[in-house]
């Protein structure tokens, strides 16, 4: 950054002194970064997940978090099986992961603020059963955020087979206006 002063004479005995600063582009970008939160959407989603015991116990993880898209994964595990005859993961485990992913999708829209957002309703269609041993990936997107309600759509597929979804969901969440909700994620 360059600093300096320019003295401008405006007629007899009247002068102005103008201080100037010239930022380089790099400095300007650094200034913008400094004013944005010191954490990303992915950080907040991870802290959110860490605070939710059931989701941790399920073994789900966050893969990516952007304003309109969150991706999570639920690795296959023996104790999450619904049908012992074919080793297919239980619909309830997939539901629990998708419900959590939906909540995170809302978090990504309210970012950098964190809000408590209980589910109002959730509909899940099971298009096909996931194969034994397959991890399930979920993508959730909060496509509309109003003052009180968030609308989320979700799709899940077996890892490596994004073209053939195994489940689709539609959900609504309500935004609770609770002070200090952010402390859940360490804000």
């Amino acid at each position: 950054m360059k600093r300096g002063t320019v003295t401008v004479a405006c007629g007899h005995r009247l002068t102005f002194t103008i201080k100037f600063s010239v930022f380089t582009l790099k400095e300007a970008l650094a200034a913008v970064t400094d004013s944005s939160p010191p954490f990303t959407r992915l950080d907040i989603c991870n802290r959110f997940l860490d605070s939710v015991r059931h989701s941790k116990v399920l073994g789900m993880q966050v893969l990516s978090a952007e304003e309109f898209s969150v991706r999570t994964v639920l690795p296959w595990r023996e104790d999450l099986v619904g049908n012992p005859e074919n080793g297919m993961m239980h619909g309830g485990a997939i539901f629990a992961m998708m419900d959590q992913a939906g909540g995170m999708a809302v978090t990504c829209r309210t970012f950098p603020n964190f809000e408590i957002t209980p589910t109002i309703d959730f509909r899940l269609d099971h298009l096909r059963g996931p194969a034994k041993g397959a991890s399930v990936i979920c993508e959730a997107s909060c496509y509309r955020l109003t003052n009180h309600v968030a609308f989320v759509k979700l799709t899940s597929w077996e890892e490596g087979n994004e073209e053939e979804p195994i489940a689709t969901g539609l959900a609504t969440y309500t935004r609770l206006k609770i002070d200090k909700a952010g402390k859940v994620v360490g804000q």
Partner: protein
Amino acid sequence: MKALKTLIEECRSGETDYQELVDRVPYARFLGIKVVAQGDELTFVLPKNDNVIGNPTLPALHGGAVAGFMEQAAIIFILLQMGEPRVPKTIDFTIDYLRAGHFRETYAECSVTRLGRRIANVHISAWQKNRQEPITIARAHFLLSEDNA
């Protein structure tokens, strides 16, 4: 492992506890689901358990855990309803959350709205304090597979 059909018949006749049927499903054991039978009436129980906590500050139950519990309850319920038991596959599951699920025991009961040849429609209600104040209600469709259990 006993054939599913044999186990169901034994449960119906009272020879075997319903719990054995529930415990066949790994995910049901993961959640710790219990079943209480009073005659033919079945009440499913999701015991108070740290692993089903969602919001730690309240603390409240995880909505997904309650949904999984209700879905499993419905599956067991249909299995017992069918003359020739066939494994139900979930087609869709729709849940409405009416009240916060507190960190305490949760109960669920099911009613089959329609049991067709291929599709079953089930209503599930879950409560904590009393039946008249459900914390969640759900509706689900199940495909009754061709192959007998």
